[in-house]
């Protein structure tokens, strides 16, 4: 039981501008369930992508030893050939194919070039029995719930003679029953001799199932601990323990009256019928205040923000919004903008920018009517506005006629911020404004956020990085499983305290 099946030594991986993994070491013992914990962006998923060959050999530094042999995987097929299978957070199933077809996708049970359906379905049924999936093998995957889809993925992994199964946040989208079933299944697989690596934010689950826990932080291995006798607090302190000095520009808060109040806000999923994503959430923002919204992935932060922003996301939305003490209804993005609310997205490439257009047309996109007289845009005025933002925001581009798709992440983010500042909002919701941005640009973004607050704007800052929230915010709300689980003033906020609130109530999910 105590020989190691996997050893990763000195793994480093750099993306342009970011060192995602820095000399990471990981040892997994044969037949154990090994959990990897860390904040969003700590490098967990990157490490697993290195292991599974998504980033092929040569793309990273360091060495991987699997079953005593050094491995140099050129791709996923390579690692799967060795018996390493990864199941991603976003399931990779073809929803219009049957369960059996999905299980044997890319590994078709064929005879002389033709698929042998009897063998396929019989083998699928056997695998489904092993994972406890009580369905007909010919059922389409689209007709299954997420929990059962997860089981299909595991059955697919078993069909590949898996030795090491990696699960990235397997229970993030599952309800309690499905989660419990999945964890039981993993225990069963462990008894069959299959080793598991599980990435999870749900620390109670980690403690429940894992034999050992490795903690990553900022792309480095902090420690590996035996789960025996481990507490959530110990894991949390390992996940967040870093210093905060000099990373944030100073600011003297001048906080005024209440500007925005949201009450009893509930949002349902537009794709999964009846699933509650935000559950009676409420919060307030005051003039000149920076308020943080902390929550782990899947807690419903973006869903909360976008649904407030003119119902840009979700169905079955209920609740009340008060602006300057008066109740308002925001039925479209346009109404939200007109009421002085702006939302800068977490995914600027998909939702924030027209990447084939230039800076000035992106800056003007949300406030075009301010530049127009009777429906006609004054292009010179537009140029001047965009150019003034280019200078004041320090957007590094030769001119505002530069295409935004070619700018760096930090400069793209500044274009997105310019766009929203130009609409002259009272409330700015900033969703992960520093995601994928290097340290220098982060400081500039922080400075801009502070200036906006000083100008009397109210900021709702959504961030996965707790130090960022602690360094910038006057108050911080925590969101867990769609519910506001805490409201902490800056003076009382600690990373450990927030993390506890962010993971609170996970088990109480409906």
């Amino acid at each position, binding site marked *: 039981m105590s020989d190691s099946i996997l050893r990763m030594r000195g793994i480093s991986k750099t993306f342009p501008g970011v060192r995602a993994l820095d000399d990471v070491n990981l040892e997994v013992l044969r037949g154990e369930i090994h959990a990897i914990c860390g904040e969003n962006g700590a490098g967990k998923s990157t490490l697993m992508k290195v292991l599974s060959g998504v980033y092929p050999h040569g793309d990273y530094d360091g060495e991987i030893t699997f079953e005593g042999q050094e491995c140099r995987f050129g791709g996923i097929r390579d690692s799967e050939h060795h018996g390493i299978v990864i199941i991603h957070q976003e399931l990779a199933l073809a929803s219009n194919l049957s369960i059996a077809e999905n299980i044997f996708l890319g590994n078709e049970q064929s005879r002389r070039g033709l698929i042998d359906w009897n063998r396929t379905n019989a083998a699928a049924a056997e695998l489904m029995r092993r994972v406890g999936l009580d369905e007909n093998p010919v059922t389409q995957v689209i007709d299954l719930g997420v929990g059962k889809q997860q089981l299909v993925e595991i059955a697919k992994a078993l069909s590949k003679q898996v030795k090491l199964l990696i699960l990235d946040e397997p229970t993030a989208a599952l309800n309690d029953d499905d989660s419990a079933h999945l964890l039981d299944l993993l225990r069963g697989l462990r008894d069959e001799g299959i080793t598991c690596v599980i990435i999870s934010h749900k620390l109670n689950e980690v403690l429940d199932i894992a034999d050992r826990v490795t903690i990553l932080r900022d792309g480095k291995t902090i420690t590996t601990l035996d789960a025996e006798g481990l507490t959530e607090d110990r894991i949390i302190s390992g996940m967040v323990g870093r210093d905060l000095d000099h990373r944030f520009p100073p600011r003297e808060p001048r906080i005024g009256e209440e500007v925005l109040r949201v009450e009893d806000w509930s949002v349902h999923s537009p794709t999964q019928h009846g699933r509650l994503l935000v559950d009676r959430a409420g919060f307030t923002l005051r003039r000149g205040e920076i308020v943080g919204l902390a929550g782990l992935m899947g807690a419903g932060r973006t869903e909360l923000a976008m649904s407030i*922003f*003119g119902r*840009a996301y979700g169905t079955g939305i209920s609740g009340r919004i008060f602006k300057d003490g008066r109740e308002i209804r925001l039925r*479209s*993005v*346009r109404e*939200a*903008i007109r009421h002085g609310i702006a*939302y800068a*997205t977490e995914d600027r490439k*998909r*939702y*924030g*920018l*027209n*990447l*084939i*257009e*230039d800076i000035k*047309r992106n800056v*003007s*996109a*949300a406030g*075009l*009517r301010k530049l*127009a007289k009777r*429906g*006609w*845009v004054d*292009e*010179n005025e537009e*140029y*001047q506005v965009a*150019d003034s933002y280019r200078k004041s925001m320090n957007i*590094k*581009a*030769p*001119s505002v*006629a*530069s*295409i935004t*798709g*070619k700018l760096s992440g930090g400069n793209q983010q500044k274009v997105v911020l310019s*766009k929203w500042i130009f609409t002259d909002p009272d409330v700015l919701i900033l969703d992960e404004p520093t995601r994928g941005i290097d340290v220098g640009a982060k400081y500039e973004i922080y400075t801009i956020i502070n200036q906006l607050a000083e100008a009397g704007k109210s900021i709702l800052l959504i961030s996965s990085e707790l130090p960022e929230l602690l360094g910038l915010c006057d108050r911080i709300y925590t969101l867990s499983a769609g519910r506001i689980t805490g409201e902490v003033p800056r003076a009382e906020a600690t990373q450990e305290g927030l993390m506890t609130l962010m993971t609170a109530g996970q088990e109480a999910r409906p």
Partner: protein
Amino acid sequence: MSVAPTAERAAPLSRTPGGPRRFQLNLRQSGIYIAFAAIVLLFTILTGGDMLAPQNISNIIVQNSYILILAIGMILVIIAGHIDLSVGSIVAASGAVAAVLMVNHDVPWPLAVLLTLVVGGLIGAWQGYWVAYFGIPAFIVTLAGMLLFRAVTYTILGNRGIGPFPEEVRTLSNGFTSGFLGNVGLGALGGADLFSLLLGLAAVAGIVVTQWRSRAGRARYGQVVEPLPLFITKIALAAVVVMFVVVQLARFRNVPWVLVLLAALVIGYSVLTNRAVFGRQIYAVGGNLQAATLSGVKVKSVVFWIFVNMGVLAALAGIIFAGRLNQANPTGGDQFELDAIAAAFIGGAAVQGGVGKVVGAITGGLIMGVINNGMSLIGAPSEQVMLVKGAVLLAAVAFDVWTKRRAGASR
């Protein structure tokens, strides 16, 4: 061979920041015009100059007018990221409606034209509803429309054509401005219509004044403008081309009315796409639908109105086409959609949407028209014409994809 805005703006990044900002002629931006000039030159040589003869220039314009009108509507549809396969059938259906109104019911022609345009708009609204509000891909909706409106045409006309059209409608399609001011002698070129010449001079003056004012305005705001010699060369080139065409037309039978109409449409729609809030929103929707939605653009309404506009322009093309044949025909307008779509893509539209220019689509349409015309002048059989047109379409888009990849665009 793509469109100017992107290419022109992409250029500065390829140079080192902070270096001198020069204006450089961009291959992608000017490729289509160079290609057009090359094709015209080629056929002029092959036909021994017949290509640019007064009557032939007049023919090219009149014969392609309805395709060019369709191309204007189509480029907007394509910029928004959609497609319209039904325009050929709308041309036929609206021609039939116009014929029934004018010929069978003796409705006065201005009212009949107006009613036909309204019918075109309603057809567009029908398709726009399914695309924008119901969420069916435009390819499917307009494929259905292609059949539906052809069926409507047959229902209205039966199996025969209806004609003849009133004099005024035929004049709009086929006729020429009358020599209001008589002729002037142009030396060796012989007599030419003074009114047409003055029209041409007015057009040149208009180009010079608007371009100069725009350049001065940009300079006043501290923007980069083209160096003066390049600016003057471009203006002079445009003036020479306009005046050459006008002089040739004036020597033949004066400026066709349909050219006046086309010029007005090109100017109007160019300004709309460049400067109107609505025009900008079309690019925003085609460039990134989600970002446009989250910027407060009423995406569905924009798409809806683009199809309404397409319907109106298709109806206009239908009236002109029917007027030209002096008969509304149940098979009329067949495959016009393919010519209009090809014109837009040759003119630099991007398949993913978000890119395209009205002038580009017109140039693309003219390239097709010149190939048609030139090859028939040299007596090439129609299968060869098809072959060449197909090859040009493929080459144009391949060139666009190639330049994009070389530029390393991040999309």
